[in-house]
């Protein structure tokens, strides 16, 4: 174990190196670039004996990974925003072919208008493509999640691709101390991939062929079952990781001071850190509030959310994107999860931090104030005023 000062992007690169990835393929896009630049250095220096295929598009990057994984290689790619959207078709191929690809995504807004900042529109718009989605909160968690992601993706009961999505700039380009496990520790945690259902040279093997309706629905059901097994499998993987490395993240949903709470806010990614501080402030002021961080969005932690709903009267969900539904994407999922709950708390959907607007303590206090008010809002876009200071380019 070494302590290094790493950005979230470098945490991705170090984790991929420690995982001994065999094939990397990527196309540059801001703010993902430093992930692949660092990997290129690792490969060039010989520290990472991998094939790094530099392609002409993200679509090709993911196809390289799909085809390489189809032969049994451990593969990694990274992208962001428009790049993830260009991959859309291949995201379905990767999951439908049950290829255990791990992808780092730097969550960034989607154009137009052009914007490079933190926003979950890119990953949220790909939530229905059959990938597991993990949203870390810190650079440490980025590194740990990528290592867990390989083990989860390659588990023979799962065999699904995994994205580890980190907020643009807040994680991708901000440095903080990160405990980097030793190669021996990672090797013990993550053995080489055991190929199953792969192409075998010299044998009549086939991946991706057409099927009739009866087989199609059967394959989809198998894929759905694999997704259903993720919570239990990930819990076991996390336990093992915790035993070896001394860190865990509480499974799919990480609760904070939810005991006896009147209102709980659900967040994802970096906003959770600020929200935790706000919960402490409000608790010290005698307000009974708590936080629940959705760490894994796919599969959606419906069981955990129902359990939370059985204890709390008011739930608020902060979404860092707008996907043109009835509420924010996460809020919609929460609504569906509590639909079958014996107790249904009042649900509020807050849109904040969209397009990279800062989610500060005042904004989070406003969400809690709204939640605790006599008539909480249903759906609310927060922080719509222009910034008070004059922007330099204005």
């Amino acid at each position, binding site marked *: 174990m070494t302590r290094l000062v790493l950005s979230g992007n470098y945490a991705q690169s170090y984790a991929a190196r420690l995982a001994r990835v*065999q*094939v990397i*393929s990527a196309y540059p896009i801001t703010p993902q670039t430093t992930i692949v630049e660092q990997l290129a250095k690792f490969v060039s220096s010989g520290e990472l004996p*991998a*094939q790094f*295929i*530099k*392609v*002409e*598009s993200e*679509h*090709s*990057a993911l*196809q*390289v*990974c*799909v*085809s*390489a*994984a*189809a*032969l*049994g*290689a451990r593969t990694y790619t990274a992208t962001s925003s428009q790049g993830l959207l260009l991959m859309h*078709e*291949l995201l379905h*191929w990767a999951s439908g072919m049950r290829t255990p690809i791990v992808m780092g995504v730097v969550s960034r807004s989607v154009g137009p208008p052009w914007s490079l900042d933190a926003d979950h529109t890119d990953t949220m718009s790909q939530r229905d493509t059959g990938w597991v989605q993990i949203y870390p909160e810190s650079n440490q968690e980025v590194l740990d999640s990528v290592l867990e992601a390989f083990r989860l993706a390659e588990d023979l009961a799962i065999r699904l691709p995994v994205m580890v999505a980190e907020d643009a700039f807040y994680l991708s380009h901000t440095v903080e101390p990160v405990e980097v496990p030793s190669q021996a520790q990672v090797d013990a945690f993550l053995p080489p991939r055991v190929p199953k259902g792969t*192409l*075998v*040279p*010299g*044998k*009549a*093997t*086939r*991946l*991706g*062929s*057409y*099927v*009739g309706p009866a*087989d199609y629905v059967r394959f989809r059901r198998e894929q759905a079952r694999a997704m259903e097994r993720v919570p239990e499998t990930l819990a076991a993987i996390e336990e093992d990781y915790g035993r070896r490395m001394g860190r865990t993240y509480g499974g799919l949903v990480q609760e904070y001071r939810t005991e006896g709470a009147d209102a709980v806010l659900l967040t994802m990614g970096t906003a959770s850190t600020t929200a935790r501080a706000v919960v402490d402030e409000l608790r010290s002021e005698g307000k009974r509030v708590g936080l629940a961080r959705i760490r894994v969005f796919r599969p959606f932690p419906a069981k955990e959310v129902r359990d939370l709903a059985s204890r709390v009267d008011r739930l608020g969900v902060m979404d860092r994107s707008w996907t043109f539904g009835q509420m924010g994407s996460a809020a919609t999922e929460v609504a569906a999860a509590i639909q079958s709950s014996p107790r249904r708390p009042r649900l509020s959907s807050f849109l904040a931090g969209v397009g990279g607007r800062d989610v500060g303590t005042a904004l989070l206090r406003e969400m809690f104030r709204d939640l605790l008010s006599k008539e909480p809002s249903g759906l609310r876009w927060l922080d719509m005023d222009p910034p008070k200071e004059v922007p330099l380019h204005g």
Partner: protein
Amino acid sequence: MAKLTLPPVELVRSGHSACPGCGPALAMRYLLKGTGERTVVSVPASCWTIIATGYPTTALRLPMIDTPIEATGASISGLRAALDALHMSDVQVVGFAGDGGTVDIGLQSLSGMLERRTDALYVMYDNEAYMNTGIQRSGSTPEGAWTTTTPVEGMARGKGEPKKDIMGIVLAHHPVYAATLNVAYPEDFLRKAQKAASLKGPRFFHVLAPCPPGWKFASDQTVQIGRLATDTGIFPLYEVENGKLRVTRKLGQLKPVRDYIKVQGRFGHLTDAEIDTVEHEVQASWAALLQREARP
């Protein structure tokens, strides 16, 4: 009786589901005789998706991966990367894509694979239209050909634009080896397949693969029409190795293009004057090809 010069190994199973007289079926069969049993094949959405049959059967005695239509170049880069990473460098990697999947939607991916110097053989089987979806025009459909999206009706005379020069595009990337092949000339086909298999680096085949339902001819005429394509100068057979071009089927006097055009329903509307225009164009391009061959 002529001596059988093709290896007896059959890596395409007899139970494939190609149409009678299918040129692309012959193309895969001859190709794999040349590249051998240690070949992995990547096939995008195309006729061969269907010819290779659906789950749980497969028509090849080899590994085959299906991909979306535009992804062949990237797929074969990925296959080669995995084989290198897994220390299986003896395996041949073949991308086997249709003309639409290559000259139109797959051009970027093909260009990327050539530029990356991927050690793989990209085969474009050219039946000159989107045949699997029902005969829509592609960038590789010849000028004047009827397709369902280039009808012959009123003033419309079939496709109004010339065929895309894929060999020109590929050669601009300087592959280690590129060749034109024709399923109607299997010995030439096999020799080129064996040669390609002996080389390392990016390689490209442009294979003429006549399509009876798409070109509108009887299914027992595939080889006859394929031969006419080459012998009229419409589809000359040549190879380019390290930049040096060599015509592999020498022709003295070209046969009249009329012989090729008149036997296909897709050209049935062409007038004598229109056929004469094609004749002139073919004469000129054949002369240009011989000039390129003569260059030192």
